[in-house]
């Protein structure tokens, strides 16, 4: 992980505080001005529809627009001059965070109001407030996009973050709206195919509204993913977001498949009415389809990324499938206990059992494919940090579940011992926590065996990370070099930007850098770029 320290100017603390104050005020002024202007536009486009005029609202909009907008303009004019003249200003984290927050906020507000306004238009309503908010916030978004891209004001840190997070927002909106849009016709079809009744107009409209959300989401995603190249963005954030998207899509898909299987099993083996059984099938089918598309697409992108990102993606899917399979096993134990408890009146434990079987049948094969327990583990893989982290997380989660369920079971046992009551009551009360506890015991037992095996196998591997942290002193764009150097050495990298412009380092200097660091073993190493090319390393004392 690379940490880039900003170019230090005299009075750093003062300039940091000054930037925080200036950007906080600018943020507030821009929002105030946008609210005021959208209030005024709303009155213009909504004129003639107003039944009772609201003078205080108009006064507020006028004040916000006429005071907020000029002040924001003046503050921006002043700040823009600083950005143009001082490179440290553009390299400041506060400036990057301001742009990130403003880009995301205006995008979210614009998308939400536009979708609501268009959705209402389909239903025959005209919402001037939402429409004017959408117009103004799209404008503010375009303005800030220009700030991000203009050579004079573009930030040098977190440069890709706004684009990556905007693409993620578009994807989430598009996927959830698509699930909604597909689920509604399926629901109608399952309800008996009453497509052309008078009442059916309602679901057609809500489906169209979901399609509008979906179209806007797709547009936002496509624009950022392809046009603004979030797809190819370098850096750790892009990889982390990709792994998160793959994990979330896998979780959605697997849960949807599990639910669909559950419905099918209930139709075959259960006695509940048809309409009740298939009630959750519409969303399950839609979520399975959309989740699957998102999963497959992003898994293909992830396959082209670094080994580390690929391994993380695989481990995340393995964890999700493991949660599903283990919960399913817990539910099966729960159903088994429900069938042996001495009850007066029973509902059917079949429903419970079929649910558990669906979760186990979906979770277990996916876990098997992602974790591949049958293959031999090499020493290098056993020593892989992400695998170690995965095992520690599994142990931690197992410990938490075990502690909570043991407390509940202990409480019920003592309650039973002190108060009496039938043994059937005891089984009835502990069956759910006991099911979870037994699933946790199996998960813990298996991963403990893996942990011991990994330690035995990896014992021969020399620790690759001989250097704790590298302080890299250089000018120019060192971001990519720092990331590659981190991958190669395993050391944390801190970049101190040199004032001397001739002391540049790039990825072409990597072989020389690695040669200089070869054999060095120290917690901290200083690497200084020489003015004429080449590097000098200084091993720091502990």
């Amino acid at each position, binding site marked *: 992980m690379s940490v880039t320290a900003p170019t230090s100017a005299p009075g750093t603390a003062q300039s940091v505080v000054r930037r925080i104050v200036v950007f906080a005020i600018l943020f507030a002024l821009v929002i105030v001005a946008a609210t005021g202007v959208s209030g005024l536009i709303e009155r213009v486009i909504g004129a003639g529809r107003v039944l009772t005029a609201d003078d205080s609202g108009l006064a507020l909009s006028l004040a916000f627009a006429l005071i907020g907008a000029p002040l924001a303009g003046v503050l921006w004019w002043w700040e823009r001059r600083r950005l143009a003249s001082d490179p440290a200003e553009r390299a400041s984290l506060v400036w990057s965070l301001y742009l990130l927050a403003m880009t995301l906020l205006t995008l979210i507000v614009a998308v939400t109001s536009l979708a609501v306004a268009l959705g209402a238009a389909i239903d025959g309503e005209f919402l001037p407030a939402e429409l004017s908010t959408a117009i103004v916030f799209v404008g503010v978004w375009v303005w800030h996009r220009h700030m991000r891209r203009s050579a004079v004001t573009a930030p040098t840190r977190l440069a890709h973050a706004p684009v990556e997070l905007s693409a993620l927002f578009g994807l989430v909106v598009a996927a959830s709206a698509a699930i909604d849009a597909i689920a509604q016709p399926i629901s109608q079809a399952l309800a008996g195919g009453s497509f052309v009744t008078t009442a059916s107009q309602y679901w057609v409209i809500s489906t169209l509204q979901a399609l509008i959300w979906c179209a806007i989401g797709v547009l936002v995603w496509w624009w950022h993913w392809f046009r603004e190249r979030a797809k190819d963005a370098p850096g750790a954030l892009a990889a982390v977001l990709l792994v998160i998207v793959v994990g979330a899509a896998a979780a959605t898909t697997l849960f949807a498949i599990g639910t669909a299987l*559950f419905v099918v099993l209930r139709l075959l083996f259960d006695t509940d009415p048809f309409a009740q059984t298939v009630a959750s099938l519409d969303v399950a089918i839609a979520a399975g389809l959309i989740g699957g598309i998102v999963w497959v697409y992003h898994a293909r992108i992830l396959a082209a990324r670094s080994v580390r990102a690929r391994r993380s993606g695989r481990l995340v899917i393995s964890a999700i499938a493991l949660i599903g399979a283990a919960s399913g096993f817990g539910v099966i134990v729960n159903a*088994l206990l*429900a*069938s042996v408890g001495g*009850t007066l009146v029973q509902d059917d434990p079949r*429903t419970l059992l079929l*649910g558990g079987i669906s979760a186990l049948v979906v979770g277990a094969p996916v876990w098997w494919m992602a974790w591949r327990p049958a293959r031999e583990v090499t020493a290098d893989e056993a020593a892989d940090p992400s695998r170690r982290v995965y095992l520690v997380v599994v142990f931690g989660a197992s410990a938490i579940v075990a502690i909570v369920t043991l407390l509940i079971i202990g409480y019920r046992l003592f309650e039973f011992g002190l108060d009496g009551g039938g043994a059937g009551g005891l089984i009835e009360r502990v069956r759910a926590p006991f099911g979870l506890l037994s699933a946790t015991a199996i998960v813990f*037992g298996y991963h403990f065996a893996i942990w*011991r*095996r990994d330690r035995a196998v990896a014992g021969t591997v020399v620790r690759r990370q001989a250097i704790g942290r590298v302080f890299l002193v250089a000018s120019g764009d060192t971001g990519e070099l720092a990331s590659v150097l981190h991958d190669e050495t395993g050391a944390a990298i801190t970049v101190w930007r040199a004032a001397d412009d001739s002391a540049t380092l790039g990825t072409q200097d990597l072989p020389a850098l690695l040669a200089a660091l070869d054999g060095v073993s120290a917690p901290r190493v200083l690497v200084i770029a020489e003015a004429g090319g080449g590097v000098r390393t200084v091993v720091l004392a502990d």
Partner: protein
Amino acid sequence: MTDPNRRSRITLIALIAGVVLVVVIALIAVFTRGGAAPLDEGTPEGVVQRYSQAVVEGDPATAIAYLVPELADSCERVPAGTDDLRLTLLETTEREDTARVRVLVVTVYGTGPLGSDEYESEEAFDLAKVDGEWLIETAPWQLTVCDPSGSRK
């Protein structure tokens, strides 16, 4: 195959065998079980079982037959619930003319592959002996057929 690899594989096989065994036992137990065993109709818990069974199965006429006459004769019906219920007998306290049956009521209001959504509560039935037969005076709200306040008018 190296020794550590072999040991972890044996663990895996043993655990999979355990999981499969539990699943098979659960399948057999759930699909072959014959419902709750009927209790003696002459006992308070036997009456509670028959009454509750009738309510759960949507047979209020049978259920009302197990109520004391002052409740059954002027029965003001309450709307039926739709949630699935499980009743477990906790304890019966029997006196000369009255009895109290404590039960655990589990109300299931949703199901899914990761288990069911349910909550449990402890409830009690009060019974009275009328002409040598146990009849129900009060029932928990989930299992009420006749409004208890209506009959007192």
